[in-house]
């Protein structure tokens, strides 16, 4: 039987279920893939929201995502698909500048969604990654 393994929060602040009552696991591992919950800019130790610029939030989200994917036995260079949710299309180029720092080679498939994001964040990343490390 194929398994479904919830991934525990890799740092106390990334337990959004405990801090904000969001009814979700940080990630689930199944069929060689890591399905992550939408990630926002919170402090990884305190869980405090870190509203900022598109750039500062994007960097914080990727920092948190790096922690989560490592805990799940994957890494940023194994990202497969990203839905980059942003609060306004006008920040598309700003998102790209910060975003490319974290996916320098063979970046994941991506769709940018201009949508409403919870709690007034400017960016939220919804990702799927492949389990394992790059050989």
């Amino acid at each position, binding site marked *: *039987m*194929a*398994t*479904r393994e*919830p991934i525990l929060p890799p740092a106390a602040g990334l337990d959004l*279920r405990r801090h904000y*009552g*969001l*009814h*979700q*696991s*940080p*990630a*689930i591992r*199944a*069929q*060689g*893939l890591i*399905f*992550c*919950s*939408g990630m926002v800019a919170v402090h990884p130790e305190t869980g405090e929201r870190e509203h900022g610029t598109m750039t500062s939030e994007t960097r914080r989200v990727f920092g948190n995502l790096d922690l989560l994917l490592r805990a799940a036995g994957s890494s940023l260079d*194994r990202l*497969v*698909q*990203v*839905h980059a*949710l942003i609060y*306004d*299309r006008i920040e*598309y180029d700003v998102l*790209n500048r910060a*975003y*490319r720092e974290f*996916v320098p080679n*063979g*970046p*994941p*498939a*991506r*769709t*940018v*969604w*201009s*949508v*409403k*994001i*919870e709690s007034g964040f400017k960016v*939220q990343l*919804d990702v*799927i990654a*492949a*389990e*394992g490390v*790059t050989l």
Partner: protein
Amino acid sequence: MPRETIHPANKNLDVPKTFGLPYSVGIKTDGLIFLSGMTAIDAATGERKHGTMASETAAILTNMADMLASAGSSLANVVKVNAFLHSLLEMESFNGAYKGFFPEAPPARNVSGVILNSGMKVEIECIALAGGSETVVRRERAPIEPKNPLLNNSRRFNRPHSPGIRVGNLIFVSGMVPLDPATGEARLGPTSEQIQVVLSNMAHLLESNGSALERVVKLNVSLANMLECDTFYRLMRRFFPNDPPACTVVGMQLSNGHGVEIECVAAV
């Protein structure tokens, strides 16, 4: 890689059939089930069941449990939920109604606020474990490209995404906007034309990489104007005449005057 269409045991949950729409409620492949975005439907009549955020959420998840059971799975096997809300001011009522359906180790989840069809307050889609014995441990990951370099906008415009990523027997395709295959320039004609250009470029990208439109498992469509939903479905029928993929259509702001952006997951 087999690709199997899911048929709900309760015919009232077969929304595409009831409303004459050219998509499937769900597709099973590679040990995973991809369900189309679901809105509140009365399981006893098949009619839309508009209500509060809480009542619509409960109706959807009850039906989703039924739908997954028809496919040999269950809510406990859901790995990922994407929830689209008409307003994030309703996040609390959504979350409240949602909780009870996933008592243990809830799925990963992404919530966003978009424009929804038919005045519904919430639309929910999921990916679930199929519940069979097939297990995938390691998936090779490789970026894919279209054979026609003019359609490779990631490379041409130095964007930080690949046209798609292959992982094992699945391909995840980036959001595609209408580019003219002869010039690589944006084709900003009527939405109907934009949709055809995107789907035909998607066919090219998939065929360049050992897949095809017939192998698409899930389509995610973003429209700048939800009044164009019918236009999209009319054309989708033409591009996916048999065993169409699962599909979710939502409305949002798009870049550069594009009327449509489409991404997909396909089996190789």
